[in-house]
């Protein structure tokens, strides 16, 4: 999977035709073979652009930044990225007509150690679902796979799970990197920073971390597209995907196989309902 040349050509053409102001892509790190996102405004820098299986970061995160707001943006999206883009479009955070989207029929990306990322192994929607131009051969939607870690956790006892998650909340340093790196966390001011919450959870203690992470994961329930930007950003290397994959599984199983952002106009599972939703857990 190497679309560097194609992307360079497309970006160069877009700049030449005056169709975009900014291009968001990937470039190589100067010191190793990993890649970092790059925000290009100068057509001369187009040659830096690359796209390989090392292109991990979900670039739609950059659509909420100052230098892309109300600008015409070209960007590269993989399957998962395009789902978050779909949600951003529905939630009126970006305007479709201002974007030029290069969709990738993604074959999965690898982590720093060269291993295929877990979310790619379990990927359901590898192809970009919203794009102006598609690179690669689309493979279609795959069967839903329940996250391996969730299955493992489900097999553990209550006390064991509690001990495991206590470790997570204790190791959280509440830097909020997860939130800032998440493309779907674009709120003008996050609820956990608002007075209503800080009056009881303003400190960086682990109980505040519990509140923050739980609230965060519930706000992403039915919206999280499993791009793992949050995990990549977490300085404590916390397995944050557990929170999201659990919600995703519950939602997929119970709410008509809902998957966030796959369909155009999807807002997430909490903003619609069905009369057939499970009712047996209610007394």
């Amino acid at each position: 999977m190497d679309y560097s040349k194609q992307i360079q050509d497309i970006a160069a053409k877009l700049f030449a035709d005056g169709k975009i102001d900014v291009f968001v892509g990937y470039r190589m790190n100067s010191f190793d073979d990993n890649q970092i996102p790059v925000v290009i405004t100068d057509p001369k820098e187009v040659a830096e652009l690359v796209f390989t299986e090392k292109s991990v970061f979900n670039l739609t995160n950059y659509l909420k930044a100052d230098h892309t707001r109300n600008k015409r943006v070209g960007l590269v999206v993989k399957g998962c990225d395009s789902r978050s883009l779909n949600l951003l479009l529905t939630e009126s955070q970006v305007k479709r007509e201002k974007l030029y989207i290069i969709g990738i029929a993604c074959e999965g990306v690898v982590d720093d150690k060269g291993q295929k990322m877990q979310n790619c192994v379990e990927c359901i929607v590898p192809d970009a679902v919203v794009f102006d131009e598609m690179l690669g051969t689309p493979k279609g939607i795959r069967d839903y796979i329940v996250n391996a870690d969730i299955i493992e956790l489900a097999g553990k006892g209550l006390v064991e799970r509690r001990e495991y998650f206590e470790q997570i909340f204790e190791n959280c340093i509440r830097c909020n990197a997860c939130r800032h790196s998440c493309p779907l966390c674009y709120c003008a001011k996050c609820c956990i920073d608002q007075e209503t919450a800080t009056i009881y959870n303003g400190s960086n203690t682990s109980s505040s971390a519990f509140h923050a992470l739980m609230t965060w994961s519930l706000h992403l329930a039915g919206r999280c597209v499993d791009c793992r930007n949050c995990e990549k950003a977490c300085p404590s290397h916390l397995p944050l995907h557990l929170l999201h994959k659990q919600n995703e599984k519950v939602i997929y199983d119970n709410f008509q196989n809902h998957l966030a952002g796959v369909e155009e106009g999807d807002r997430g599972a909490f903003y619609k309902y069905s009369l057939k939703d499970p009712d047996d857990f209610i007394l």
Partner: protein
Amino acid sequence: MSFSTFVTDKTGLQKLYEAIISKHETYAPVEKFGKYDYKKVSSLKECDPDSPIAMTMSVKPLFFPRASKIMKYEANSSGTTIMETDEDPLAGKRVVLGVKHCDARGLQVLDAVNKWDYIDSDFLKRRANTVIFSTRCDKADTHCFCTSLDYDLEKLDALDVAVVNGSDGKIYLQARTGKGDIFLKENSDQSTMYDVQNTMDDVRSTKYEEDMKKQYIAFTGSFRLKMDYKDVNEKMAKRFDSPAFEEASRNCVSCNTCAFICPTCHCFKISDEKIKDTGVRYKSYDSCNNVYFTLEAGGHNPRPAKFRRWRQRSMHKFVYYKERFGVNLCVGCGHCAISCPVNISIFDVVNHVANSPASS
């Protein structure tokens, strides 16, 4: 004034560590979720004092925790009473093992600000009661640039005992402070370690020093990043209006990670958590990279744009702090670049700005 140096081998060091752990309240890097953090340990098996630099959080939280209680109060119909806070869990006599030199330097840098203006007695007490055992790295990591900054690793007295691997397979324990010297002497085991001064004649002592020097040169040679900090300080001071800040910060996602894991960042916020009648006032980390950091009550925000916040962060590290306290607020540990989701290093930003055209 010179302090004693002990020489030992791997098993000797392990024995020493074990003895320390059994006798003292000891903290050391403990692995959790693939990341090392300094935790209280009860046996050497739990921890790894030789934890890789790239995977280890800074030692700062042991002295300036991410959230600490500064006050407790009770409010009822008879008024508000301030109660005694619980005992500071970090104030006791303790030892920290496996601290990196850069981290230890970070603490030294923080001493300056904690002794200035408001004297942070909590922080200073924690510092005074702690003996720091460092492990000197043999090889630099991708993002390290500690040797480029304004301190000398070989003479650094931010730590109390430096553990250095000699090229001859021996391990040298160098006391760097009086506290370290006393501690080392008290805890040394005569059967496995011996004082270099006592056992070495002049010839061998010269050889040791040469060996150390050679070893240090090899270590410095392994650095990818190098800068001339003096030059940078001056250049940065002249480039407040440089557009280079914007360019350098363009792909930052403002996630604040850099500040939270930085060994020297010390911005904090104060928050009250009150339930029923009792409240606790906490001091917790904050970051100047946070949009709301400078948001004023009236709604005005002097640093709404990302590059302004980056400018503040870089200038604080290399200009303002230096002006006030004479030291850089950056110790070159590279943690920010390692933890950054998009691998932005303060080194790159500062270098980029310093080498950009000066503003008029």
